[in-house]
């Protein structure tokens, strides 16, 4: 079988491109080396939908960020993803930063982003916990926070529901043109496709180099973060940014869609694309920078630290377009920040400007943009919730105590077209194990549920990748 399109990479870009393609009569396949959609850069980032004031005017980053931001409300409604336009507030702490703030306001106008310069008093009113020495701020109301885990997974689920094939846990080893088709060899199989889209994140330069010499480099730029418990509301009400520098948009303080707070990221160049370690000196520096903006961050409420890798291109802009020698190979490379915010616009851009040039796109009659709705019991009234539990008692049984995740929600995820195959994949979808005990109480229950669902022994269930099984050995007695 020859696929029309083969997408390498099931991150947020790959997933949204796949979804867009699934609205046409095309045979599309997505291949990813990870065992879940959105498992690398799309999983570990700030979860911010930037407004788009920061990228250099005229760049793809600027254009796609601003466009993408506007697409989020509808997209997240269709995909049942938590998105909240809380606005971002860039703050000047020192006198000499005021000038930079107005420069930024000018850039915002050029990029077509609505912003408002605020006085120190206005900033303090919006953000009571801000450093009292604040000198002013730039409010961008269109910035938002999103759940990046469900955005990616649900986009892929929508794609699969509309006919896309998804192969996880397969690494692409080589791509060769054979006549009119590309032959893509993976660790498990071989595929033929008319068009290849390279959305391979930190490895996108490597995938591109499989067909031609590449004159740019994608380097992993690591960002380390703290996650705080959702212990109370109002620590910050907006995404709080320092003034951007050469190193990027800087260390932010924000609430997340789950009501937690996120603090980070650092910015460190890394030779090792697989390095997702954290270290104390870096996190100490993150803490110091964040405390300068919000002095009262309660770091004793930290429930986790993590790091993510930005696929930073040497070109300083997204690398999107045809390969040099062939317009049937489309790169979506170097999608670093503001990649998440741009992702819906990236998908449109790739399909409308590139795929459409080489394949004829016929709209699918039965395309369904919206997913089957998920039920969130905590959003229901007492009566609604009781009616639900009466119909399906699993929604009454709570598995994750910290995040109050019910068995019903877990079973719903397992019934979906991109089901969770690991403890982590389930955690990304439902938040079971995401709370302050970090799965200390619910992990065995989660493993039991997964084992029962897949009809295997608990010893087969993985935390994450292959080799990450938890219930490794039977005890003497159980043997």
């Amino acid at each position, binding site marked *: 079988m020859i696929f029309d399109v083969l997408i390498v990479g099931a991150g947020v870009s790959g997933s949204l491109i796949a979804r867009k393609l699934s609205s046409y009569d095309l045979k599309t396949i997505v291949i990813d080396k990870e065992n879940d959609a959105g498992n690398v850069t799309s999983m570990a980032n700030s979860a911010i939908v930037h407004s788009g004031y920061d990228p250099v005017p005229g760049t793809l980053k600027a254009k796609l960020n601003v466009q993408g931001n506007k697409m989020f409300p509808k997209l997240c409604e269709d995909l049942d993803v938590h998105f909240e336009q809380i606005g971002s507030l860039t703050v000047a702490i020192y006198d000499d930063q005021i000038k930079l703030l107005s420069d930024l306001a000018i850039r915002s106008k050029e990029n077509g982003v609505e912003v408002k310069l605020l006085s120190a008093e206005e900033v303090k009113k919006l953000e009571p916990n801000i450093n009292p020495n604040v000198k002013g701020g730039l409010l961008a109301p269109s910035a938002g926070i999103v759940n990046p885990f469900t955005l990616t997974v649900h986009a892929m689920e929508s794609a699969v529901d509309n006919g896309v094939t998804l192969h996880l846990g397969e690494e692409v080893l080589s791509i060769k043109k054979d006549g009119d088709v590309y032959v893509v060899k993976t660790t498990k199989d071989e595929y033929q496709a008319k068009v290849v889209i390279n959305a391979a994140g930190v490895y996108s330069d490597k995938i591109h180099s499989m067909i031609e010499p590449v004159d740019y480099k994608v380097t992993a730029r690591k960002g380390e973060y*703290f*996650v705080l418990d959702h*212990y*109370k509301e109002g620590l910050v009400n907006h995404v709080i940014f320092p003034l951007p520098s050469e190193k990027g948009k800087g260390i932010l303080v924000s609430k997340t869609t789950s009501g937690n707070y996120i603090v980070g990221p650092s910015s460190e160049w890394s030779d090792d694309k*697989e*390095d*997702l*370690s*954290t*270290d104390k000196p870096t*996190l100490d520096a993150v803490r110091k920078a964040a405390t300068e903006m919000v002095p009262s961050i309660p770091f004793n409420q*930290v*429930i*986790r*630290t*993590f790091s993510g890798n930005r696929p930073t291109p040497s070109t300083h802009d997204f690398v999107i377009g045809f390969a040099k020698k062939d317009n049937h190979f489309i790169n979506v490379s170097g999608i670093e920040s503001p990649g998440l915010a741009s992702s819906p616009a990236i998908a449109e851009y790739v399909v409308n400007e590139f795929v459409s040039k080489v394949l004829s796109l016929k709209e699918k009659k039965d395309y369904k943009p919206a997913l089957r709705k998920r039920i969130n*019991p*905590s959003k229901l009234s*007492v009566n609604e*919730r*009781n009616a639900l*539990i*009466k119909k399906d*008692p*699993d*929604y*009454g*049984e*709570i598995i994750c*105590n*910290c995040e*109050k995740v*019910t*068995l019903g929600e877990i079973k719903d995820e397992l019934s979906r077209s991109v089901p969770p195959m690991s403890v982590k994949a389930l955690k990304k979808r439902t938040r079971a194990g995401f709370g*302050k*005990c*970090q*799965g*200390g109480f619910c*992990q*065995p229950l989660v493993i*039991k549920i997964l084992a029962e669902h897949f009809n295997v022994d*608990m*010893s087969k269930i*993985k*935390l*994450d*990748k*292959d*080799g*990450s*099984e*938890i*219930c*490794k*050995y*039977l*005890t*003497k007695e*159980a043997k």
Partner: protein
Amino acid sequence: MINKKLVIIGGGSAGMASALEAYKQGVTDILILEKNDYLGGILNQCIHNGFGLHEFNEELTGPEFMSRFSKAVNDNHISYRLQSNVLGISKDKVVTYSNSYEGLVEVKAEAIILTTGCYERNAGAIQIAGDRPSGVYTAGQAQLYLNCYGYLVGKKVFILGSGDIGLIMARRMTLEGAKVLGVAELNPYSAGLNRNIVQCLQDFNIPLYLSHTVKEVKGKEGHLEKVVIAKVDEKFAFIPGTEVEFDVDTLLLSVGLIPNCDLLNNLPLSFSKTRGPVVSQDMETEIEGLFSAGNVLHVHDLVDYVVEEAREAANGAVKYLNGKLSHKGHIYDVKPGNGIGYVVPQKIYLEDANDKLVFKFRVAHPFKDINIFIKEGDNVVKKLFKPAIIPSEMEIVRVDKALFKGEAKEISVYVEERK
């Protein structure tokens, strides 16, 4: 909405003990809410012995200890709901819980005792440095897998923290055929009971590295491969050149327990240094009729002490239900002074108190040859000599109520080294 005289949240040892005490004192309209599908809580996974020396004058295993309580609960027909998770407590004491067989239930309680225990500090909370592989567990989590599910999480084990669960697990995993390579403790002294150091480490030749902690965990392939430990100075900063690397597949964390009192987050309450709620001499929080006891208040060394405290809370709840807590008269704030980590209770209503005032506290670090003082304002009410005192052992001091004058605002508990 249903009505109950007394709702107890959490059916572990504290919950059952308080239910039984309230029942004994004549309150029979009780409902215990338990999230698991069994009573007894964490004791179910504590299959080692050493429980009940104070309570029953014998050494029992955790399941044996707790089954005596669950039997009494059943024999007295005290009602309870299993697999019932409490979603919220309102200021006017409406408890909302959910289960699969009743749905979402709202109970208007006249009094509540919160006995939800504690949870373990984990890799996230201690911000462990390095990779994020599988193979890093809290000691209690590994204990649950081992003792309740029949799985061993690994065979080459290092343990960070010398808390009792870690020590117990060092022995338990060794008995199951795993090799425990060592235990690192950040402090220059152990966090666990002395008997556990002897019986769980020394008897099995497991080295204890004091003033050491994990500097990095390594495991790029998704599972743990190595831990690096290093020595720390008095300020807990790593001393360069002291790193030791261990090839392991498992790192167990026994680095402290934290009261599990999320349910109180949205209530107008203050919290003490233990991270549990501020309580009075009757284990009553700042919301009248809402009581708390056991590890959700402060972490205890022995379940026997948990049971004792649960009875104090039940006694308080019964007094409250019978209109015998006036919240009037002289009020003290109880403050931890020199050398004291925390003290429970944090408030005393002198008029409501029983004949003995009970002070429970831990020292912040070990001392030798000291006097413990309990002072009302500037007036020393009690002075006690101790040849040695360590943080891992909770102190309980009982003082006659009659010795307090009801004048000063503050009672302080502190230690002084003898000159």
